[in-house]
């Protein structure tokens, strides 16, 4: 692709949690219109990577830089990063008892509008809007009346993440093992949702363990993360090779 415009640039990033360094000199550039897959063994720092980008307060950036559209986001709180267009689909979406999915989604949507000085939408307008999005991931409207993720099956939780992504329409989406625990039909629905969201202005990071997701969503690059850094980068072929050989041979 010509005229590559970076969305996310990570330079020499070191990050720790509870004084333990997890990310050790991570470098990665993601341009507009690109889909990157990050693979790697358990404990290699993939989830930490996603949380650090989103600004989770438990993780500390020791050194390095994270640029989003050319501007450093290190001093921004998670809420501001979200408003800029950084979205994280959680590996384990948390349950929020007593809060309806509809209220949660509307509040998230309106918070974003508010940050852009756009008038907020009322509940009726919102309902029309969200109903369109529900179709994308094959969910019924009853989904909205349930409490956020409470009593959801594993697949429903993941769909809910994709619904939120479709609604907030972020520029950068990091999907942390969104494919884990899904049956093949659910995987297809979710992939459809992700592909519908993607455009030449956006970028996606897929964190995954499995090649099968990549059958539905074609990544431009595949990175292998090990011990807090990217040790190998390749194209879609690499995933197939990893599926066969595992990660040991890279060491």
């Amino acid at each position, binding site marked *: 692709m010509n005229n590559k415009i970076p969305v996310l640039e990570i330079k020499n990033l070191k990050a720790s949690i509870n004084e333990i360094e997890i990310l050790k000199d991570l470098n990665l550039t993601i341009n507009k219109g690109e889909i990157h897959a990050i693979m790697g063994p358990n404990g290699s720092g993939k989830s930490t990577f996603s949380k650090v980008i*989103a*600004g*989770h*307060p*438990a993780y500390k950036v020791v050194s390095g830089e994270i640029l989003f559209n050319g501007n450093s986001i290190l001093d921004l*709180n*998670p*809420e501001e990063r*979200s*408003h800029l267009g950084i*979205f*994280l689909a*959680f590996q384990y*979406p*948390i349950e*929020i*008892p*007593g*809060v*309806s999915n509809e*209220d*949660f989604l509307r*509040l*998230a949507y309106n*918070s*974003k509008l508010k*940050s852009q000085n756009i008038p907020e939408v009322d509940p009726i307008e919102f309902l029309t809007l969200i109903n369109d999005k529900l179709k994308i991931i094959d969910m019924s409207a009853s989904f909205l009346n349930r*409490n956020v993720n409470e009593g959801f099956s594993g697949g429903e939780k993941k769909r809910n993440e994709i619904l*939120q992504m479709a609604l*907030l329409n972020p520029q950068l989406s990091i999907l942390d093992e969104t494919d884990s625990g899904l049956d093949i039909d659910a995987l297809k629905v979710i992939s459809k949702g992700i592909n519908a969201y993607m455009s030449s202005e956006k970028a996606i990071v897929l964190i995954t363990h499995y090649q099968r997701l990549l059958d539905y969503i074609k990544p431009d690059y595949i990175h292998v993360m090990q011990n807090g850094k990217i040790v190998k980068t390749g194209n879609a072929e690499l995933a197939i090779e990893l599926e066969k050989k595992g990660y040991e041979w890279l060491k």
Partner: protein
Amino acid sequence: MKCPKWAQLKFSEINYQDIIYYSAPVQNKKLNSLDEVDPELLKTFDKLGISLSEQKRLTNVAVDVVFDSISIATTFKAELAQQGVIFCSISEAVKEHPQLVKKYLGTVVPIGDNYFAALNSAVFTDGSFCYIPKGVKCPLELSTYFRINEQKAGQFERTLIIAEENSQVSYLEGCTAPQYKENQLHAAVVELIALENADIKYSTVQNWYSGNEQGQGGVYNFVTKRGLCIGDNSKISWTQVETGSAITWKYPSCTLIGKNSQGEFYSVALTNNYQQADTGSKMIHIGKNSRSRIISKGISAGNSKNSYRGLVNINNKAMGARNYSQCDSLLIGNLSNANTFPFINVQNSTAKLEHEASTSKIGEEQIFYFLQRGISIEKGIELMISGFCRDVFTELPLEFAEEADRLLSLKLEGSVG
């Protein structure tokens, strides 16, 4: 008598010689409208989160304001009198309606009932009085605002509400106090009497000063509230939102004597910093087919202690009695404490009881989930708290439900994150 020690509360001995037992604001004339009240006094109410706003005054709420030991204003008296409803300070009621006061005062909470009720009975000077005659559905929401203003004053007000046969009333009390380093004592007694088919709904939004972040100062709130469902098919419903006070010791109760009588208790108790609350309800079933319902929501943040303590007592005469109790606790942070002490005493095999309890926690990961979706901490907590409290807030009179919601968010500001 001795100060009861069974509650899950820690406080140093109260020096009763040190308390001022009567204190009156300088303004002495009794007023009929809040417009005549010193605007400075009204401003103080506003600042403490309880507004006596124009809007509220115009939307069918009659207000009685009690400052320290005396009642300073009662609104809408004439309008209420047209229906035969008496709503005035208790000192006025003693003068104007002695036969009613004599007949009912002390019948629900006898003077020797407990340590703090005895103290109140000995020293009370004012409070609110309300009488709803037969067959009258009180056209206005009645409401009393209490305020302790004097630094060393204790407040010992007394409330008496009598609902005659087939009558109905909804009553709300609000409480505020300014911030002092010393502790103030509030020992009130509330008595409700519901005759045949009468319906009393009593709501409280309690926002006494709760002490500072280190736990200094604040009001000691030792209150005895009890309702007597004496008539058949009578109903008493308590709703409380307890957010203030350094210590809350309070168990609004119902004695269900009449056949098919009903008692309800809906409570949200929020504690933050070093606040301590030991609160709950007693439902004493005596009448046949009497029913009761207890919904208690405790929220503890900071270093606070929040306990639910309740008693459901079903007498051998209470054939077919029913009770449903639900006690939920929500913890915020890692240093707060929640306890539940439900007591159940059943002497009747035809009774049915249910008890449910749950404990949950607002954790860092939930907060992060909100933040990642662009929702601020305050909004996120507000949403979770109002979801947690929904069952109780729907019981509050409409114009106060929103106030309660806001009050809780305000109280929790800065307690997470």
